């Protein structure tokens, strides 16, 4: 009780500086977490693209999709690859917009050899093709624990007067973050073609790809699915450089092309480079705010040096003195850390629910760990500096100073 009373006495005259510190530190921690979340997104997209076995392939993008002739020619060249011995398959997005109980989703056909490996083990359920005579879907963009796995839902087209419906069973849910593979980016600067450009946040229903599901998706789109403007041509393992070059020449007539290995390499260097580019800004801010905390702690000790001498004389032990010396600052730091962590978790929860999209950002437990680590480091420095200062205000030292 006495300690609490002393704490509140200590707060007197420091409220303004502590409130300032609180807001400055909140801003700094938010900048730090924003930068770190960008890094997490880049890193995760690199992992996903790597897991998807997209290596040894050719990425293509029609850069004049509005030109009908050019699209027709691209379709023809893709068709001509069907019998090509060095081409294993062509992967591209095929989707339709559907709704379940007025909630919009992208119904996306997935390649069963790529997607399960790309996303890894699901937090709930599994990748299944069919169960009880119904197609199975994996849901993404919602909190996994909220997904009624094992239940049947009806998908309806969002197009007015389109009565297409499909009863599907939910077999599993993707974990947060809802990173959905979406081809369609191309830059003439090869280094700019990195994996993070191919992932978006969206609500998705993954349906296994086969001839029947392709027909269903086409029906959901009123008989016309979007043209194949981009995708990946996957080569067989034994394809020679000459064969790869031949395929490249065919596609490059009507689209911009890039080897997927180049994308993977660019992503790797981008991941390592991104930390270097992302961290300096919050580091500068952290350095200044850490110094601010130390300043306020030191100032508090200097202003209350007479009080500490009295505490000492009246029998207050060293441990209590040390706690009291930096308590105001550390309590502010604690409140700031808790506020930031709670804010991050709320943001994460809202994004996971699909309430809003956080493009190119991932908020996770890593942010909480980072925030707490930074706070811990500042806390230790403040405690260390406070103890150093406090040693100078022992009654003996005070007496020496008075005599001087």
């Amino acid at each position, binding site marked *: 009780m006495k300690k609490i009373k002393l704490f509140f006495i200590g707060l007197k005259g420091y409220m303004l500086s502590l409130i300032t510190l609180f807001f400055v530190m909140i801003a700094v921690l938010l900048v730090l977490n924003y930068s770190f979340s960008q890094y997490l997104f880049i890193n995760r997209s690199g992992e996903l693209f790597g897991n998807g076995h997209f290596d040894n392939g050719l990425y293509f993008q029609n850069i004049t999709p509005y030109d009908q002739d050019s699209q027709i020619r691209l379709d023809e060249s893709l068709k001509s690859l069907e019998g090509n011995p060095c081409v294993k398959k062509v992967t591209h997005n095929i989707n339709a917009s559907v709704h379940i109980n007025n909630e919009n989703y992208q119904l996306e056909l997935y390649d069963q050899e790529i997607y399960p490996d790309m996303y890894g083990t699901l937090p709930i359920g599994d990748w299944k093709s069919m169960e009880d005579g119904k197609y199975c879907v994996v849901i993404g963009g919602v909190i996994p624990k909220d997904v009624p796995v094992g239940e049947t839902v009806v998908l309806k087209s969002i197009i007015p007067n389109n009565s297409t419906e499909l009863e599907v069973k939910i077999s599993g849910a993707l974990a947060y973050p809802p990173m959905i593979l979406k081809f369609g980016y191309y830059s003439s600067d090869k280094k700019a073609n990195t994996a993070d450009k191919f992932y978006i946040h969206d609500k998705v229903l993954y349906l296994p790809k086969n001839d029947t599901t392709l027909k269903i998706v086409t029906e959901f789109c009123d008989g016309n699915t979007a043209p194949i403007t981009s995708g990946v041509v996957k080569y067989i393992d034994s394809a020679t450089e000459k064969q790869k070059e031949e395929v490249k020449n065919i596609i490059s007539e009507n689209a911009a092309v890039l080897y997927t290995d180049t994308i993977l390499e660019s992503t790797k260097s981008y991941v390592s480079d991104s930390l270097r580019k992302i961290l*300096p800004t919050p580091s500068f801010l952290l350095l200044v705010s850490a110094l*601010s905390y130390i*300043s306020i702690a030191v100032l508090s000790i200097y202003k209350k040096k007479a009080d500490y001498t009295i505490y000492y004389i009246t029998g207050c032990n060293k441990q209590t003195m040390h706690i009291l010396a930096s308590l105001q600052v550390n309590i502010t730091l604690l409140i700031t850390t808790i506020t930031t962590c709670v804010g991050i978790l709320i943001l994460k929860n809202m994004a996971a629910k699909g309430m809003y999209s956080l493009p190119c950002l991932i908020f996770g437990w890593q942010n909480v760990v980072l925030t707490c680590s930074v706070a811990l480091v500042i806390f230790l420095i403040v405690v260390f500096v406070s103890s150093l200062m406090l040693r100078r205000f022992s009654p003996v030292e005070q007496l020496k100073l008075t005599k001087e």
Partner: protein
Amino acid sequence: MKILFLIFKNIKYYIKFNKAVFLLFTTGILSSTLALIFFYGNINPIKTEYINDDLYSRQYQFSFFPAINEININDMFDKYFEPEYSLFISKIDNRKIKNTLSEKELTGREFTVGYIYDNLDRVGIKLKGRNKFLESEITNSENTIIVSKYTEYYLDVNINPGLDKITINDIEYTIVGVAQMDSDFLLPSTTYIKNGFETNEMIVVAKEKPSYYDNIEILRLVRDKYPNLETISTHPYRYYDKIQKETPIILFLLAIVFTAMSIAFMFLLKYLADNTNYVSVIHTICGASKETVIFIKLMAVFLTTLAISITGALLHMMLYDVLFQKLNIVDNLTYNFKDYLLIVSVACIASVIISIPFIVSFSKNSTITNKIKFC
């Protein structure tokens, strides 16, 4: 002179009263200055635009009226940069084009016929046939032509390269390709000159961006050499010149950032000022007016911040290659004297403004009250 002496004496009292607090204040302002230099360079659109080196920031576009016969670009730019490529464009009336490809009537529209100088790889994206002229076509000034995709669309025709022809100025050209490019039609350079096209527009792209002052020289040179120069649609520092007008806003925002960063350190200064107020009381007793005392105190803050921020700027300058350049988000970022001067000014002005409430509190009391309180 006396006031200046008193200002320095005031600073000396700050240091003498508590070296540790003053050291902490110095470290805080120093780190805030270094952070301010970092933000000024890395998140300031004026700085990033200045060093921007993409294709558009290396491009010049000149329009001439009346059109000119011949331009020797080597003569003009050699001293300043090596051109990556140049595009010369002639504007022609739709009546001078005979559309034998479709029945579409060409009215109310000007067409552009151009040629690319030196770097033939820069024609545009090939869509049909060729997007390059053969060496023989250039040396023999053959009447071959590449049509832009937009023009093919406008003419409402599906062009067959090698077979289709088009007539411009009563000369028939064989279409060798369709490409996505800036000009409606493209000719081999020799054909363009042989057939007497006059240039209305010239686009020159430099291999390396010229310096700001070289750019001013280049623009002056072109204006002098071509009195019929109508407009300069773009040049490497066009956007930079435009956003430079926003400098006060950016400096104001940086001052806010600096204030937020250094406000905690101003509490240290308040502590030093409060505990050396007895000096100011003596000044007042000796006849100094309240305004003079406040001026001395504010100048002490100003000069202290000035000394610290200049140290910060010098430190940044000296350690730039070794340390600070590696921390930059923006590549090839450079700081000049003017930048440091602006940063130091922002830091000093912001410090003085923040310290006003701390220092003015002293002047609220009468001399007697201050004497009782501080002496």
